């Protein structure tokens, strides 16, 4: 039961800590998309981020994923306040600590499944290595894709592509996985399989997961549900027991 308690209020160093985060867009006409968001994500916690379209979910995800910078407030990742980091340091931290899973998988079509999984590691190390290759093969094997290593994304089904994208997100052992509607582009069966995969990895790897979803069934199966409306978190709760 304690596993399903909201971790945002727990003690210890969170993987992600947001304090009073705002994000404005526009110069002449300023639009405040996020209005003082506080959020904590603990290791091993599987959090759903829900809310209507335009509520600021993608903006929040970009800020947590260090793809964007807050207008004000603090964004800390693994205890590092990211405000003072330059672009290169931010990129390195992102590559080391965060894995992304997108709705449309976003695999690079010019590379094979194995190469797609290895790419973040090659970018980090500067060149490929046998250890990296073995790790990527292992991750694809865990995704049930060991027989598709040399396939290019165009030769894979939607579900298979998303599995490769998950393997890519996990290959470097990140402490945080950000998933933007990971099952949104899949049919029900493939979506369920992919979600189960994410949940299993969450248990095995103890990484923090933040999953943006419109699917209530998925939200109900997370540890915590954070609801964002008009740029503010309006509720944080554990989903009702199944």
């Amino acid at each position, binding site marked *: 039961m304690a596993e399903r308690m909201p971790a945002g209020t727990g003690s210890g160093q969170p993987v992600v800590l947001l304090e009073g985060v705002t994000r404005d867009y526009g110069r002449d006409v300023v639009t405040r998309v996020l209005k003082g968001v506080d959020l904590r994500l603990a290791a091993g916690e599987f959090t759903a981020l829900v809310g209507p379209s335009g509520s600021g979910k993608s903006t929040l995800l970009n800020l947590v994923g260090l793809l964007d910078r807050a207008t004000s407030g603090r964004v800390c990742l693994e205890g590092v306040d990211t405000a003072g980091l330059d*672009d290169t340091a931010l*990129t390195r931290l992102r590559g080391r600590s965060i894995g992304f899973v997108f709705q449309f998988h976003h695999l690079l079509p010019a590379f094979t499944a194995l190469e797609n999984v290895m790419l973040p590691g090659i970018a980090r190390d500067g060149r490929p290595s046998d250890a990296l290759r073995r790790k990527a093969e292992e991750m694809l094997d865990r995704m049930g894709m060991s027989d598709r290593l040399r396939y290019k994304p165009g030769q894979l089904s939607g579900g298979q592509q998303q599995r490769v994208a998950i393997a890519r997100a996990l290959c470097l052992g990140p402490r945080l996985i950000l998933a933007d509607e990971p099952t949104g582009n899949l049919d029900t069966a493939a979506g369920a399989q992919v979600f189960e995969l994410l949940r299993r990895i969450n248990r095995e790897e103890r990484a923090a997961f933040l999953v943006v979803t419109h699917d209530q069934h998925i939200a109900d199966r997370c540890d915590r549900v954070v609801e964002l409306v008009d740029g503010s978190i309006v509720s944080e709760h554990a989903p009702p027991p199944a």
Partner: protein
Amino acid sequence: MPFEWFVALRYLREGRIQTVLILLGVSTGVGVIIFLSALITGLQSRLIESTLGSQAHVVVRPPEEMPRLLHEGRVEGTDPAAVARNLAPGDEALAVRLEKPAQRLRSINQWPQVMRDIEQVRGVTDVSPLVAGSAFVTRGEASRSVALRGIDPERFRRIIDMPEHMAAGTFRVQGTEAVIGTGLATDLGVRVGDRIRVLTAGDRADIFTISGIFDLENKGVNDSWVLVSLKSAQNLLDLAGGISAIEARVDRIFTAETIARAVARRTGLVAESWMAINGQLLVGLRSQSSSSTMIQAFVVVAVALGIASVLVVWVVQKNREIGILRAFGTTRGQVLRVFLIQGLLLGAAGWVVGVGIGTVLSYIFAGLATNPDGTPTFPVNLSWQLFAGTLVMALGVGLLSATAPARRAAGLDPAEAIHHG
């Protein structure tokens, strides 16, 4: 393989149409530049070679004699000459008449020492004494005005490669031997072994045996030169023990003018380079080089714009992928280098193909028309310097034209690129 090379090579392989388009652009540009340069430098070399085949690079002479005062007197205002100059009666003017004297043949003072001095000038490789003057050659009824040239054969052959240009006989001017050109030999109807009489303005004459007939591929020279020994020419031209000029050869022909100035400063004599003597030729060569450089510059600009525009489109097409690479920890610097490497690789590959195109074109063109002796009418000059130069150019153009697209790619906002492509 480093990350940047890995990604750059893969993108080039996958983007076949763009890659082929850019390669076509670069290789055509390199091919045109190689062909044009090879042709123009070939033609220029041929022209210079034929000009310098019968000419020293630098000729040193005694300074011209100064004008001298011929008449000095007072002019009264009533003189007709004074009226013509608007002088009023009573005015006086000084009338002076300066006349440039006819240049007589004069010797260079202490010429052995001067020759040694010229040899010391940097860039001078060989020097040769010369006694040159006008003369008449007669043979039977035939008589021709000629340029008599007394030479030291051992030194002179290092200035002009005479043995290489002998049409008959040998290049030898010992005692009363003479070597003449093919034109003069035809005019006089003489052959090797025949005798000719050489007569100078001072009524000095001598009989010479023709030891050789040369062809320097220059009609004026072939028709007029009579080469004899230094001593014979000194006797005929009344220049006992003296010489009228020193001819020099330099290591790099286009430095001849600078070297001539250095020689003039050092010796106090008049030194003329082949460049000054053949001013028109040089203007022609320079104009040819300028127009060739201009065409090449336009080709380079066109190629650079072509590469840049295709790469810019490429970057736009790959916006989302670049955003994803950035999301997974690829730094701006790495993205920048991926595209710069693509530019470099395209430049290098385009150069390889372009060298092939340029070389084949050059040989085809050279083979289109030939002279009677089998040499090409349009000689081409393919040198390693040309290939190296175009390699540097291709790499530079590739790198430079990739800079703007690469900067654009590196500057992409990853969140924006992923969501909006």
